[in-house]
């Protein structure tokens, strides 16, 4: 979808300090080489199958379907991957690429901790040094994941600058990368940042829809009518959408974090409330004030607590190919509880945003229609926070 300069329409680009330009050019060259290299692809494929546990299940949520009384609902179970989320798909790709490029060290930002855990995991497996940058607020929200990363041999740096959440962790990663670029690859966790990251991460995540497309055709003999995924930076959504983009009848729906409501100041709903800007290396949509200062955003979900969105999403939105809807904390928590009760699946609070919208949408569809929800991750990490949201005093 992107052209040579990494543009998706007007979105994307490489707005990054000169110090990093040669490294990005080298990364792009290497990626373009290895993505067609049979040996790289076969190594990646065997890691995806033999280590991450792919293909992930396409699960028919029969009780949920019956209960909501509309479309037939399938869940793409990325929560069943090793490390419990879709993040491993991208990390296997990028860390393997880093190794091929002769890098000995990877750095990464993390919000909820899922991308940090996945990066630390693959770095441990492939024998690379790993340092993770995580906002101090997120370290507090996700203490178990901090410990998990340390168990995996990574060094975790709590980020104390700015608002001390995901965007600040990205800032700090970029600062670290300009300081030490020779032996280090920045393993960006989402379809964002400067080119080639949005394209590369999307390609590594597109395994989700490649599998889902085959699986649904086998099960139902037809394509789904709607595909839903939660969107922060947008990597699981891009992975879930990608192989359906050409199928114009398949509706693509991204669910963004409306926090306490898009009419309050506490949300992270970039498409609903953002405007065109340039930040973190890309031209895209961002939550910002009238002078282009980036807003503090909010979501109960650390993984969606980001003021921007990947440039390909901004493009799909601008041409009307995908639509994006806001989902509040309350709706997401209700969906989290609903899925646990109904299907016996505790999903990530991020994924629960997509489940919440599915609960609104499914009853308006007919029983011969099909929807697939990307269940991007599992919810063990969120149990304590949801309990606290409901007034139960549990700490992990």
């Amino acid at each position, binding site marked *: 979808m992107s052209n040579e*300069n990494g543009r998706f329409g007007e979105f994307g*680009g*490489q*707005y*990054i*300090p*000169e*110090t*990093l*330009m*040669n*490294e990005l050019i080298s990364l792009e060259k290497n990626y373009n080489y290895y993505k067609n290299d049979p040996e790289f692809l076969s190594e990646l494929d065997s890691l995806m199958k033999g280590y991450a546990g792919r293909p992930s299940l396409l699960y028919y949520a029969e009780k949920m379907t019956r209960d909501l009384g509309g479309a037939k609902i399938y869940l793409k179970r990325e929560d069943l991957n090793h490390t419990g989320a879709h993040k491993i798909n991208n990390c296997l790709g990028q860390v393997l690429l880093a190794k091929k490029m002769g890098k000995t060290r990877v750095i990464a930002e993390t919000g909820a901790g899922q991308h940090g855990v996945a990066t630390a995991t693959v770095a441990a497996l492939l024998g690379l040094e790993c340092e993770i940058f995580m906002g101090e607020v997120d370290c507090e929200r996700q203490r178990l994941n901090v410990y998990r990363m340390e168990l995996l041999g990574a060094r975790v740096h709590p980020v104390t*600058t*700015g608002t001390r959440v995901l*965007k*600040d962790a990205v*800032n700090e990663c*970029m*600062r670290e990368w*300009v*300081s*030490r*670029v020779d032996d280090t690859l920045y393993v960006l966790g989402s379809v964002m940042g400067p080119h080639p990251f949005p394209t590369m991460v999307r390609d590594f995540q597109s395994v989700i829809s490649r599998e889902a497309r085959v699986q649904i055709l086998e099960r139902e003999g037809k394509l789904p009518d709607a595909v839903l995924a939660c969107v922060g930076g947008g990597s699981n959504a891009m992975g879930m959408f990608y192989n359906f983009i050409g199928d114009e009848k398949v509706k693509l729906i991204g669910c963004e974090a409306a926090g306490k409501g898009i009419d309050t100041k506490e949300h992270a709903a970039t498409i609903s409330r953002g*405007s*065109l*800007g*340039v*930040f*973190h*290396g890309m031209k895209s949509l*961002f939550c*910002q004030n*009238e*002078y*282009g*200062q*980036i807003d503090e955003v909010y979501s109960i979900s650390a993984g969606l607590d980001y003021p921007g969105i990947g440039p390909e999403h901004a493009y799909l939105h601008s041409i009307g190919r995908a639509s994006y809807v806001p989902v509040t904390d309350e709706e997401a928590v209700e969906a989290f509880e609903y899925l646990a009760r109904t299907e016996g699946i505790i999903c990530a609070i991020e994924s629960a945003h997509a489940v919440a919208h599915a609960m609104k949408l499914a009853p308006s569809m007919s029983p011969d229609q099909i929807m697939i929800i990307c269940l991007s991750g599992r919810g063990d990490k969120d149990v304590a926070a949801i309990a606290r949201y409901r007034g139960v005093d549990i700490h992990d």
Partner: protein
Amino acid sequence: MIKNLKNVFDHGKAFIAFITAGDPDLESTKEFILTMEKAGADLIEIGIPFSDPIAEGPVIQEADIRALSSGTTTDRIFDMVLELREKTDMPLVFMGYLNPVFHYGYEKFFARCGKAGISGIIIPDLPYEEKGECLGIARSHGVEVISMIAPTSEERIRTIASEAEGFLYVVSSLGVTGVRSEIKTDLASILETIRKATDVPAAVGFGINTPDQAKKIAALSDGVIVGSAIVRIIAERGREAGPYIAEYVASMKDAIKDL
């Protein structure tokens, strides 16, 4: 008549001073700029504060936070520069991240720069590949877009230098802005490559702190750019920083003036 960038390098090595607009408030910024001019600064880089300055070390990051919390906005910075223009014709440039400029609107932003006598702009997140974004509009208002060259630029140096205007901003070291005790980059060879490609002057910034460092670097280049060391004085002394800044700038200018 307002002096432009050509005048900066006219009489020996240039001392270029950076200050974050609005730290601790715009009235102080105005006073500090005049103080630095008097103390011998040849050019002032006025930093437009940004919420997420990814190329800055902690000293300037904190200055940006102080400036934004004191209510500094792009409009107020333009007003401050207009007031400053009643008192000085010295050359001034902006240094700022692309988003505040983009969001203000390139046409409106550069038109106001032109009216306020801002001769150039340094945008750390606008590399060579993306400068087409605003180059034409900036030029049409007489504002030069200053290009940066980094220790990692290698074969890009020639391309960047051959299209450079105003002056070249050579980044001394890997990493973000901030005071460094030692600068290890082979600046001599970078500057030699630049000289072969262009007559545009080259000034070096990032990490320069002491008169001794300034002297060594100015010997190789056309000037030195100092930011964090000045901003640190403001962080420590606040509104009373004036005399301390004056003393520091004079000592730095003195170190390079006879080269």
